[in-house]
């Protein structure tokens, strides 16, 4: 029993140390951000590798979520005789909730783990030490461009995810289930608010993007310089980011829904 308690205490201690380290790392990173913006080439390179190369996954993800969402919600809406609301229903769900959350989860799986592995491998192969010894700050040169690239990419990916989702819902709703096309689009126009829905969705996805990118660079930067260390960094990035995104989503949703 005492052994189990000690193990729990040690695990808690480890968690607290990692969480504290993450906070300190985040604070250490922030002052570099303005200076890094002066080198847009490095950031655009990362937006390409983290964002543009995730496009296919995000587009397919959005399309299929939209297709399924339309099928499921039509089944419910038909009972209330309000199938014309299908477009508004799907769009609100996508723009406010599913777009930011699912896009960020897919981003964490594809790009977050890639960043953690890449930076971790740079640590393991002495590339980060080499930068330090060339008097080049690795935080400035390696970490911050990836962080900014990720933070910028996720809102754009979430927007594309939502757009593809709406397209999917349109294809199923209008062409497969016979919902009126005019009603589909006009309901979206009426119900989806630029600030309350699109604005909140973008804000959420920006927060998720910052979290996913920070976690990727943090885990990679402090990865143990071994094959196992790099693999653990990639896994931890995906697991911790996913849980963190879902938790943040709950908090932000609670704070932004006017009826709550």
């Amino acid at each position, binding site marked *: 029993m005492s052994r189990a308690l000690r193990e729990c205490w040690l695990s808690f201690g480890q968690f607290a140390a990692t969480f504290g380290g993450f906070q300190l790392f985040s604070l250490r990173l922030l002052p570099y951000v303005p200076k890094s913006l002066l080198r847009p080439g490095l950031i655009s390179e990362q937006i390409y590798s983290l964002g543009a190369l995730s496009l296919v996954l995000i587009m397919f993800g959005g399309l299929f979520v939209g297709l399924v969402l339309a099928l499921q919600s039509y089944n419910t809406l038909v009972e209330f005789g309000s199938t014309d609301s299908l477009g508004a229903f799907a769009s609100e769900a996508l723009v406010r909730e599913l777009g930011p959350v699912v896009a960020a989860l897919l981003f964490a799986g594809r790009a977050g783990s890639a960043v953690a592995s890449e930076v971790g491998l*740079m640590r393991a192969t*002495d590339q980060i030490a080499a930068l330090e010894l060339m*008097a080049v700050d690795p935080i400035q040169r390696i970490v911050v461009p990836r962080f900014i690239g990720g933070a910028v990419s996720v809102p754009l990916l979430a927007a594309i995810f939502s757009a593809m989702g709406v397209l999917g819902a349109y294809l199923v709703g209008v062409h497969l289930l016979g919902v009126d096309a005019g009603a589909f689009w006009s309901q979206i126009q009426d119900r989806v608010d630029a600030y309350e829905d699109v604005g909140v969705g973008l804000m959420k996805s920006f927060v998720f993007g910052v979290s996913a990118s920070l976690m990727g660079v943090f885990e990679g930067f402090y990865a143990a310089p071994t094959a196992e260390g790099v693999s653990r960094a990639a896994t931890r990035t995906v697991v911790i980011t996913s849980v963190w995104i879902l938790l943040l989503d709950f908090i932000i949703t609670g704070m932004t829904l006017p009826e709550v």
Partner: protein
Amino acid sequence: MIKVYAASPENLVEIRDVHYQRGDRSVFRGLSLDIPRGSVTAIMGPSGTGKTTLLNLVTGQLNPDDGVVLFDGRVVCPCSRRRLYEVRRKMGVLFQSGALLSNLSVFENVAFPLREHTRLPEELVRQIVLMKLHSVGLRGAWQHMPAQLSGGMARRVALARALVMDPELIIYDEPFTGLDPISMGVIVRLIRHTNDALGITSIVVTHDVAETHELADLSYLLSDGKVVARGSPQELQRDQNDTVRQFMQGLADGPVPFHFPGPEYTEQLQAMAQA
């Protein structure tokens, strides 16, 4: 008590009474050594004697617990990051693996320090990089990616990168490990030639006795956290100290034991059987 250390102008690097402990293990206990300007100095010693730790102290990656490391008469650490980077710009370090940036081509790797620290026009960058690559014999490989290079080639590119800012000191960390005889010969020749042609100072951390003979002006042998021998490679070869003899002649047993410390064989077998 404040200790005052006087730097000699003849030495580029001076290590004075350095103590360094890692966990419970004392790596250095009052280590002192000098690296004369313009020389190739070899730091030798069995594995685990702290050769790489010594490099980390010289480059300011680690702080000594006590004592000082002086570079060009000034204390390397502890100091601000800016001051540390100023010192490091006068140094080039060649890692055992080369540590080339894997997403950049050979040309871009060598150009990297120039692009980060200078605002030279592209034409001049091109000239300097090709000149450095030519000096290591790899001008023709300028478009290759690091993954396409052999171990020896990667180290030569890393040498070109270390030389590109015209440093005063180049540190080679195990430059001969894992190389075939031809690559090893090339690296030995390059280290010596570069040192003499550019008038720089070189520190070579190694345990390859034969190559050190050919290369070094001065050798230090470290063991048990201290310098056990200092002199030319020939002098070290004649040294009668047991540790020096064991290392220079490659004897399996001696002051550095063959067996890792442990209980008696039979005791261990019995203990394991009972467990």
